[in-house]
């Protein structure tokens, strides 16, 4: 079968403005968008530039806008799209363009670092040197938000973030959630204080683009709502 990809190209060393280029080639319905991009790069135009590594949706490299929504190129099969029409492929929105489908992720990671995304518990370890105990229910409480691969699809789908990069964004909140609701962690109050601030959870307008974009199917808007609630009520259940 034949597909046509309409790709937003931009080479800072040559182009003043981004522009679309079209590529038509043979493909299988089970091919991923990533396979098609690889084929274009290998056989049609080696200058096409994008990030990828794992090719099966676990490394978070290949988030891009496919037909107007953020997805992972390696998790989007042609058969799930309407291939009778052109397929539009654009870089994720809201971060500075670097080249073609690559954007500068610095702000994204800086925002992530703002929410103390690491385990904190300075209390003495169990005397036998073994694990801290945690019941399966307590473990389950934050399971969903441990799945994040930092792909950025959510944050760059968020209308608040498009307008204002200082909003920490859904991804950072997901990663804060993962620790706030971990029964072993002791720094929930500090994280909540950061998230109650000017760049925190209350910038979320519940647009829900984040949840729809998440390739790991994390219930992001729900997690954000839980964080809001924890701030309002001070309860961590």
């Amino acid at each position, binding site marked *: 079968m034949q597909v046509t990809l309409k790709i937003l190209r931009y*080479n*800072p*060393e*040559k182009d003043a403005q981004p522009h679309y280029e079209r590529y038509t080639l043979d493909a299988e319905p*089970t091919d991923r968008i990533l396979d098609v991009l690889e084929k274009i790069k*290998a*056989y049609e*135009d*080696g*200058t096409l*530039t*994008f990030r*990828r*590594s*794992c*090719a*099966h*949706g*676990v*490394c*978070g*490299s290949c988030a891009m806008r496919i037909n107007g929504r953020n997805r992972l190129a390696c*998790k989007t*099969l042609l058969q799930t799209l309407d291939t009778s029409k052109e397929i539009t492929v654009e870089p994720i929105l809201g971060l500075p363009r*670097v*080249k073609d489908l*690559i954007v*500068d*992720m610095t702000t994204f*990671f800086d925002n992530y*670092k703002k929410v*103390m*995304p*690491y*385990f*904190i*518990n300075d209390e003495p*370890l169990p005397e036998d*040197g*073994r*694990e*801290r*105990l*945690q*019941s*399966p229910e*307590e*473990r389950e409480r*934050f*399971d969903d938000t*441990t*799945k*994040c*691969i*930092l792909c950025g699809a959510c944050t760059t789908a968020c209308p608040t973030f498009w307008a204002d990069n200082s909003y920490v964004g859904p991804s950072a909140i997901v990663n804060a959630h993962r*620790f706030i609701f*971990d029964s*072993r*962690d002791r720094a929930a109050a500090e994280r909540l204080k950061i998230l109650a601030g000017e760049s925190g959870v209350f910038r979320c307008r519940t647009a829900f683009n984040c949840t729809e974009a998440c390739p790991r*199917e994390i219930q992001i808007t729900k997690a954000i709502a839980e964080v809001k609630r924890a701030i309002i009520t001070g309860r961590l259940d």
Partner: protein
Amino acid sequence: MSIKTHQYEVLIIGGGGAGLMAALYASKKASTAVISKLYPSRSHTGAAQGGISAAIGNLEEDHPDWHTYDTVKGSDYLGDQDAIEFMCHKAPELIYELEHMGLPFDRTKEGRILQRPFGGHTNNETGKPVRRACHAADRTGHMILQTLYQQCIKNNVNFFDEFQVLDIIMVNGKAAGVVAIELATGDLHVFHAKAVILTTGGWGRMWEITSNAYAYTGDGAAMVLRKGLPLQDMEFFQFHPTGIYKLGILITEGVRGEGGVLINDKGERFMEKYAPTVKDLASRDVVSRAMYIEMKEGRGINGQRYLYLDVRPETVNKYAALDGRTNPDGSPLHVTGEEILHKLPDIIDFCKTYLGVDPIKEPMPVQPTAHYAMGGIPTNVKTEVLADEKGTVVPGLYAAGENACVSVHGANRLGTNSLLDLVVFGKEAGIHAAEYATGAEFAPLPDDAADFARAQLDRIRNSKGNERVADIVSEMKHTMMDHVGVFRTEEGMQEALNKIRELKERFQHIHIDDTGSVFNTDLITAWEMSNLLDLAEITTASALARKESRGAHSRDDYPKRDDQNWLKHTLAWKRDGEIELRYKPVVITKYEPKERVY
């Protein structure tokens, strides 16, 4: 192209599990930077699914000594027993350390770390599978990678993300730094250091069907080879039994750990024939070979080159009853679709996404997939890189993780032992490199430090032939798959070696489209492919020379293990265009080699 310089006492190349673990420890003592071609969280450690082993015995009796024996046996007696014993005895401590860093392991009712059975891990008294793999659902590697990255952020480790290292700087036989290209700008950077730790991961992209990431191009091993240093046991590359048909995406052994079974076209659970005691949980080389035989004898599904992996609850329960499998409390094992979904969410998601198959309702089509490099940069237990068969240390150069060969995996790695290898030896590397660096001086850098790296890139950039890199690569992958895969023969490997050499020659006449500086992935990919070609040549030459079958190296023409002649490690050099092979003995402490039955 401008050159920028930086100075750190310890440099860590690679931000995967091994690199980050090293960074956590090195940065406690010495100024440290991690240089990684990917954002650390994108490293391939994040793809590891099933678990990390340690004999902590949370569900049943287990001992580090059993773990040691299983690993030795799994390695087909090629693993160095001192290193294996060290790793298996360190394992519990490292698991607890990860837990204390916040790693969200799954839990038992008592709140302890939950464990599952995995291939080759047994109760040494009964020979039955033992629950030794600690896990976080089926994303254990992801959780390890995230946890270590988080701790590095907490400890303010310096990162150079999306900097690709192209060359190691050696001064008077000592490591003195590296040269890297900043992908975003194309600038070359010279990093001056006292100690360099290589943790760049594997090279499974050499084969057509692989579970490995695009980034798995063996950069570290290839750089070491180019410095005139040897690589060890390169002929041993693991094919994992269960990759998704055609795509190679891994279906963790944890599926079989949870009771899944392999089925042929006749609906038989064929592993009973090949490994009567542990059946589907035999070690990987054994299962992959069994699958190849089934397929060769026409019992692939519909005669095709794949088999079924069946984890539907009815199948699991049927065979669990036949095998007399029990829960930890002794009651018969009985699972529901929901429990399977809960334990293997990602696997189920992969199957639905890529195959349109729901594993709870249908069996999954699988075939062996290139997975893990047992060989690599030779090191001792302190992770110091070795320059020869006598064990001479290269001062200041360390290696850990998949790109290193300690050797704890010998001829075949047991599932879950790699993640363990990463954290155990990553930590050792961090400690020893920092210790070395605090006692050493910065060697003065030569003026031409960056020249070799620059020349490599210029050669590719200015090459004006008409060969396409993609064509060469695809021929390499097919050749390696056909002739240096699960089964090997003299003629096949000879043909492969000739082919690889031809491809290397053709590689001199490539051309690339992108001549720019910013994020020139065209250029970088070509450089990476030259690494794969170098390693493919070494792999094939090492394999061709080894005239026996052992672990993952399985020859039709020499079907038996030959301890008399081949109980030894291969070391391969590339000198003046010629491959030189030498051998060194295996360290044997407690366990005398014997025949391997599962």
